[in-house]
């Protein structure tokens, strides 16, 4: 009964989305206020029904209703309740339902918070979001119904993929989707501007906090995904250039460019056409990411839904949504901006350089991700593009980008001067140079990439300090703080990546009880492995005693698990995180007797990656909550 209620709710939501996607747009075109007013109740009603559908699915999971095919395939009676809840979005169907729920949530938030927007713009924005929702609801109902029943009812489920049974997976998909879907708001604003022909700084001011917020979610989502991979895949890698990761990185790069070009558009009324294009691109790339993951077009660990019908549907959706908006963009192409009113050395031009480099990086990632598909489609055979390509081409793009990060905020709008910048940053530059040599020396070896990475990170951090020092005594807005915190977070990420990539140490050894291995000053003693039962798995649980260089001792318990339902094996690494680095131990193969192959890693500063990601997100939150956006909507309504 509950699953049918969920299915029915989805259909009602689709009807409401149809209403929301048509009447307000017609109303805005004809100036009919009552048609435009339909958007609000339709959007709120849609959220209510999608939430009801989602709750029905979650209920089916929590109560182990194995008569629902999706539950039977992705859950298990012994699965702990928290993972039963997350299993709700652990499958293709469930994750698409989550997608739709997020979209309805963003739409409803916009409905509530946009009361002060001009009526036409509001109606058009909500109308566009309604149309996107129609597409995705139709997709779920037609090809990915999560409420399908299964007869005969199986006695038990097949369990959630053990890889997904992890704290990182509880929040990674919702955050990532919040980011993906959040870009739909900027997209809708862009389309509303194209439809209405109103493109000005006010438009940028409306779109900017929403875009920043979506960017925050995406940043958190990507960071959580990386953290999950680090702990769950058993060898401590945190980024693989897997197509799925690239699928989330592409909208992130576009979104980052957009956040910055919106700054120029809002403050200076310039780069408007470009900003509009980026708004479309960021959401288009979110859709492309969804397509790439959900269709199985690219080989990836995530491509568990490999059904051409679904792929075809999403491709059609992509064609209509993105193709349609790009056509609209070409047709209503905003007349070129007023001639550029800024000098070569100015904040505008640095932000433009930021955009150019980010878009170049985006194109590089896209090419690397799709290249195997291009060759295959043209009949040139199968290839794979791996980390060497991405590392080789992205370092030269990111290095100048990071160098500019420190300078941009210190440069005045319109016109600055090199001499002035040089004087103001000379100590920061000198300090970064010293650190760039000192830190690698302290870590045990000077490599070119390590020096470069530490220099850039230190340069950004010291640049932030210069910015804060110069602003002493002034009342600082949250926007200013947000920017500085996010930039500092970026520096922390760069530092973490640099140090862990250049100075991590690992050993892979056969260990008998009592054997020891030394790594980075730590001594690891293997005390054997014993049987151990978890809620839905059995495990060999190793005991490894570690003595730190300063004599303190700690014990780690890496596990080799076997999950009951599917009999799948999993390596559960034991990680001890610290500010200066992580100890990471994982159990390899059983080698007979008491012996195991054991892998031990020392990962210096790896935690800074995620701490930096958190800082970036915090910066975004600060910026998005700046007072002027609340004031701005009020002022726009009065005008």
């Amino acid at each position, binding site marked *: 009964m509950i699953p049918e209620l969920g299915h029915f709710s989805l259909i009602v939501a689709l009807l409401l989305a149809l209403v929301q996607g048509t009447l307000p747009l017609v109303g805005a075109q004809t100036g009919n206020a009552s048609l435009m007013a339909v958007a609000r109740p339709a959007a709120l009603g849609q959220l209510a029904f999608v939430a009801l559908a989602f709750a029905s699915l979650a209920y089916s999971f929590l109560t182990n209703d194995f008569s629902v095919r999706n539950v039977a395939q992705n859950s298990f009676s012994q699965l702990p309740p928290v993972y039963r809840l997350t299993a709700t979005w652990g499958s293709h169907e469930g994750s698409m339902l989550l997608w739709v729920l997020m979209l309805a949530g963003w739409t409803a938030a916009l409905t509530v918070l946009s009361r002060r927007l001009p009526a036409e713009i509001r109606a058009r924005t909500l109308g566009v979001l309604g149309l996107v929702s129609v597409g995705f609801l139709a997709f779920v109902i037609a090809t990915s119904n999560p409420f399908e029943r299964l007869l005969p009812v199986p006695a038990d489920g097949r369990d959630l993929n053990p890889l997904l049974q992890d704290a990182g997976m509880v929040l990674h998909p919702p955050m990532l989707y919040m980011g993906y879907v959040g870009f739909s708001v900027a997209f809708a604003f862009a389309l509303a501007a194209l439809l209405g022909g109103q493109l000005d700084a006010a438009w940028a001011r409306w779109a900017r906090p929403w875009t920043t917020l979506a960017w925050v979610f995406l940043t958190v989502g990507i960071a959580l995904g990386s953290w999950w991979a680090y702990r769950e*895949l058993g*060898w401590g890698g945190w980024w*693989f250039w897997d197509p799925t990761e690239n699928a989330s990185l592409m909208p992130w790069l576009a979104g980052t460019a957009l956040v910055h070009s919106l700054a120029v558009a809002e403050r200076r009324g310039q780069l408007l056409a470009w900003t509009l*294009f980026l708004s*479309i*691109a960021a959401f*288009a790339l979110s859709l492309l990411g969804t*397509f790439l993951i959900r*269709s*199985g*077009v*690219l*080989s990836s*660990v995530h491509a568990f839904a*490999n059904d*051409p019908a679904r*792929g*075809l549907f999403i*491709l059609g959706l*992509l*064609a209509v949504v*993105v*193709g349609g908006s*790009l*056509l609209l*963009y*070409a047709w209503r*192409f905003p007349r070129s901006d007023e001639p550029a009113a800024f000098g070569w050395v100015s904040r505008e031009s640095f932000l433009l350089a930021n955009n150019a480099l980010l878009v170049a990086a985006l194109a590089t990632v896209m090419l690397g991700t*799709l290249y*195997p*598909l*291009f060759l*295959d*489609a043209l009949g040139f*055979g*199968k290839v*794979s593009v791996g980390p*060497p390509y991405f590392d080789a081409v992205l370092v030269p793009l990111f290095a100048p980008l990071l160098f500019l990060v420190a300078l941009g905020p210190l440069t005045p709008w319109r016109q600055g001067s090199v001499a002035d910048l040089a004087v103001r940053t000379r100590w920061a530059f000198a300090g970064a140079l010293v650190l760039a040599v000192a830190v690698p020396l302290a870590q045990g070896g000077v490599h070119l990439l390590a020096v470069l990475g530490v220099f850039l990170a230190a340069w950004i951090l010291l640049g932030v300090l210069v910015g804060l020092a110069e602003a002493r005594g002034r009342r600082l807005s949250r926007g200013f703080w947000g920017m500085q915190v996010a930039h500092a977070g970026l520096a922390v990420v760069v530092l973490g990546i640099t140090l862990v990539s250049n100075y991590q140490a690992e050993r*892979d050894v*056969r260990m008998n009880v009592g054997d020891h291995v030394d790594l980075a000053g730590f001594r690891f003693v293997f005390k054997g492995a014993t049987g151990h039962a978890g809620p839905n798995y059995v495990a060999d649980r190793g005991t490894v005693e570690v003595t730190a260089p300063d004599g303190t001792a700690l014990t780690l318990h890496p596990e080799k698990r076997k999950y009951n339902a599917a009999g799948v094996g999993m390596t559960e690494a034991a990680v001890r995180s610290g500010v200066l680095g992580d100890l990471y131990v994982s159990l*390899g*193969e059983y*080698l007979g007797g008491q012996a195991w*192959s054991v892998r031990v890693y020392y990962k210096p500063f790896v935690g800074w990656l995620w701490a930096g990601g958190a800082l970036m997100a915090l910066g975004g939150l600060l910026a998005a909550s700046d007072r002027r956006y609340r004031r701005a909507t009020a002022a726009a309504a009065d005008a």
Partner: protein
Amino acid sequence: MKRWLPFAVFAVLLAFLFVGLWLDPREVPSPFIGKPAPAFSLPVLERPGQTFSPDQARGRPWLLNVWAPWCRTCRKEHPFLMQLAASGVRIYGLNWQDQAREAAGLLAEIGNPYVLNAVDHDGRAGIDWGVTGVPETFLIDADGVIRAKHSGPLSERIWNRKFAPLLQGQGS
């Protein structure tokens, strides 16, 4: 013109994605899978005067790793091969098109994960095995039948996905 560019690029992309829907990226077609390993008899690098043919490796599953000293990608997978060899996997090398005869020196320097290397100077045996580039790795079962093939460097991920499940069934 500029205004139409995004749409044009997108249309091309869309066409590729459409074609891509009907391709399976995971399946690198190898007509050799499920067939008996092609025979050859080649000199053994490590033991001058002896020869090796695939029949000699029968009885337990084994890997044939096709590599060459001039191949940089092969160097990338080398640490993983060392790791595999240490965990008991039998890896035979096919030293492919090594005209400069650098293999023995290189292995002495970086470590030798192979039970032995068959020397395929002119690449004929490689052709029989359908080798198009190095590295390539084949999994041959106890009965001498090719069960899996991977083009490109082996890694733990690929190993766990393509090879380990097959080996488990064989009880190596």
